[in-house]
């Protein structure tokens, strides 16, 4: 199934989606009219308080797509069009207002409905100079405004909700129909949408909305087709998929998360609505748990629900079958995940995954088990963005390489091998930051298992004979010897100076480290001979596993062996901190 077809199906299942011909827009104010056209009141519809007042989302006649032309909306628009008033200094405002007035006067000619008559009289008598406080507040400028009859407004009926207005809108909307062609979403004949409605809410895209399907430049058209004819999608299908996508992209819709620079939208397609909701909350928690900032006013029954969800998730993470944890979700629930990345006024699809929810859960469990290392990272099950930050310069979210994040997410969702560039990205970060934490070690281990198809140990494995692993362990022991000899307040340990070259070119570096270790150990021996013996035993145990004939200190290590180096280093180093009960000397910093 294609992206558009799945979205169109999702539209049909949305409980409160805008009907055909309407769209959800942010409306700030409503102008309330008396029957004779005079203004009764101006009401602020925005929520919130103080400076951060957010406009309300309402369903109004479909917004017309305008880029640089003048095209008024019907029965609503921003104040530049409706009232001829704008905050900045714009030469076009006069023309915009004139276009709005002319369009409506033409449409409302001969109407007898009370509300529409009031609107007509208002437009005939309105002058932009009339915009003065206190009736017209300053903050109303450049907001979207709608109209209502004063008597209707008290019952929450707006002008465009009146039956006469709806009839006018429906007639006007179907006025310019293009020739019917086969729609590639539905397979039936229908008028082709020339321009598809805008998608709003994608992070990083234009504020006015971006387009998923667009052909605005010459290089994008084929066979002499113009605009929408390049890909015939019927008006109904275009409306359906954009309405569904806009709904999913709304803030706090429960259907979107941000991964890197991609706005990821997900939805479930099941005949049982409850199962679909449950699948969606599971998925959101898969990728985001651990950082969910609980709103303070969460209700008691919602709290119980989130607790239950947490328990179910921990069971899934431990490897239990989905059939045992949530049997309704095992089959019959199709789950779709769509990653959208911005590219100026267009949206590109980073990845699209569509499969049974059971398969998705299995892939997620594989991801969790591949990443598991002992000792685990500080937070028990880090969310995905925490891992992504490990590949970003300075750990900042804006430095996450976007292509890599997209490919990695696609690999996680579909259970495919991870991209090899992920390995080089992680190794570069380790070398630059000089730190191998549990998250990095987890990524390295997962890469080894998935991409290089090797075995990689979860916890310290004293029998593993892999060159890279042994060298990593040895490096950790040398570092520990230095710390034991010189204290932990050294300005630059051998890890800071030599990690990069030790992991890439062991043959050059390890003889130096060995000589240095001999000196460190002799100093340690003078203070605490027992500790020296333990360290030497450990070095001996590691070197025991190395065979002289197998080139234990190669001239260079391949990328996957460098990953094992990092893993071995992490395991051995943390073994020192864990074994604090074994040290016989007092006062040793653990």
């Amino acid at each position, binding site marked *: *199934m*294609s*992206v*558009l*077809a799945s979205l169109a199906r999702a539209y049909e299942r949305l409980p409160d989606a805008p009907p055909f011909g309407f769209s959800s827009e942010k409306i700030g104010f409503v102008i309330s009219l008396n029957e004779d056209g005079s203004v009764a009141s101006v009401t602020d519809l925005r929520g919130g308080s103080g400076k951060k007042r957010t406009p309300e989302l309402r369903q109004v006649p479909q917004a017309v797509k305008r880029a640089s032309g003048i095209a008024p909306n019907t029965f609503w628009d921003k104040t530049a069009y409706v009232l001829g008033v704008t905050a900045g200094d714009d030469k076009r405002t006069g023309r915009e207002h004139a276009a709005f007035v002319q369009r409506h006067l033409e449409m409302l000619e001969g109407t007898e409905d009370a509300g529409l008559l009031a609107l007509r009289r208002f437009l005939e008598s309105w002058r932009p100079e009339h915009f003065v406080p206190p009736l017209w507040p300053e903050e109303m400028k450049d907001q979207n405004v709608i109209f209502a009859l004063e008597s209707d407004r008290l019952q929450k009926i707006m002008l465009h909700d009146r039956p006469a207005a709806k009839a006018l809108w429906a007639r006007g909307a179907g006025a310019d129909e293009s*020739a019917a*062609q*086969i729609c*590639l*979403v539905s*397979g*039936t004949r229908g008028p082709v949408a020339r321009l598809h409605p805008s998608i709003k809410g994608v992070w990083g895209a234009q504020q006015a909305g971006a387009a*998923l*399907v*667009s*052909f605005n*430049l*010459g*290089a*994008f*058209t*084929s*066979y*002499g*087709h113009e605009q929408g*004819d*390049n*890909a*015939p*999608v019927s008006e109904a299908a275009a409306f359906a998929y954009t309405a569904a996508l806009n709904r999913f992209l709304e803030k706090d819709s429960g259907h979107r998360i941000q991964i890197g620079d991609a706005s990821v939208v997900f939805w479930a397609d099941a005949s049982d609505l409850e199962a679909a909701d449950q699948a969606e909350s599971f998925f959101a928690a898969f990728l985001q748990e651990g950082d969910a900032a609980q709103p303070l006013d969460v209700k008691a029954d919602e709290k119980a629900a989130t607790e239950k969800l947490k328990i179910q998730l921990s069971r899934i993470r431990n490897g239990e079958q989905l059939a045992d944890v949530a049997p309704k979700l095992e089959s019959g629930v199709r789950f779709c995940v769509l990653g959208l*990345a911005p*590219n100026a006024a*267009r*949206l*590109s*699809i*980073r*990845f*699209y995954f569509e499969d049974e929810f059971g398969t998705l859960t299995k892939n997620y469990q594989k991801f969790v088990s591949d990443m598991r290392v002992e000792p685990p990272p500080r937070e028990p099950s880090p969310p995905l963005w925490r891992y992504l930050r490990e590949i970003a310069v300075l750990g900042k979210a804006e430095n996450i390489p976007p*292509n890599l994040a*997209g*490919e990695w997410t*696609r690999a996680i969702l579909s259970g*495919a091998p991870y991209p090899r560039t992920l390995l080089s990205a992680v190794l570069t970060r380790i070398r630059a930051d000089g730190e191998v934490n549990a998250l990095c070690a987890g990524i390295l281990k997962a890469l080894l298992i998935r991409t290089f198809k090797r075995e990689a140990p979860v916890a310290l494995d004293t029998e593993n004979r892999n060159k890279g692993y042994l060298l990593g362990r040895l490096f950790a022991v040398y570092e520990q010897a230095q710390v034991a000899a010189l204290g932990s307040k050294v300005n630059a340990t051998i890890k800071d100076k030599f990690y990069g070259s030790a992991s890439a070119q062991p043959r050059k570096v390890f003889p130096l480290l060995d000589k240095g270790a001999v000196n460190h150990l002799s100093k340690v021996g003078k203070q605490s001979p027992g500790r020296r013996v333990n360290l030497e035993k450990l070095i001996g145990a590691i070197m025991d596993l190395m065979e002289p004939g197998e080139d234990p200190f190669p001239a260079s290590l391949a990328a996957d062996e460098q990953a094992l180096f990092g893993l071995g280093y992490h395991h051995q180093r943390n073994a020192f901190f864990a074994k604090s009960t074994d040290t016989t000397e007092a006062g040793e910093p653990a």
Partner: protein
Amino acid sequence: MTNVSYGIRLKVWGEHACFTRPEMKVERVSYDVMTPSAARGILEAIHWKPAIRWVVDAIHVLEPIRFQSIRRNEVGSKAPAGKIKSALKRGDLEDLSLLADEDRQQRASTVLVKPAYVIEAHFELTAKAGPEDNEGKHLDIFNRRAARGQCFHQPCLGTREFAAYFELIPPDAPLPSPIAEPSRDLGFMLWDIDHRAPGRPSLFFRAMLDQGVVRIPAPGSPEIRR
């Protein structure tokens, strides 16, 4: 069904493929499997004459369907035909230039990774076939050319930058087994473009991946939505 006497089977594979969906043409997204029009293009690259018309019967998918996303810098305009004509008439190249730096467009493409297919097809004689044209002759020509690797131009997997390698499967040899994925519905897929009709409309059909094989409806069949 394949016309057994005059049908051919050709194995094609490559590093990448992009059978672009018409609706995702700018930020390209590939269909999951090869389109019949792309298969026809490969066959026509090997052998075609106005006397014959290739008809694709089935496409077998041999490798798992995997995607990868790449970003490329392209330009936003096409070479204008009118300007080129007038330049030809004038005899000089002034004003006929495209500065790529000023026209940059970065476009992402979601392409298939290491695809491999077997195309089952046959050809029919058209109205332009002369008295000396018969199916056997063209079939022999095709078999000979495909066996030798001869082609008019390098066949491609969707877009020209993804070259296709091809190998003829002899009539009595067994077919390589397709992927063992469960059957699924691929949605509406482009069947081909009707170049003869005004406006060059696109024709679609409902593609089903059944045991790794996509059966393509014959031209004129009611399954093709037009």
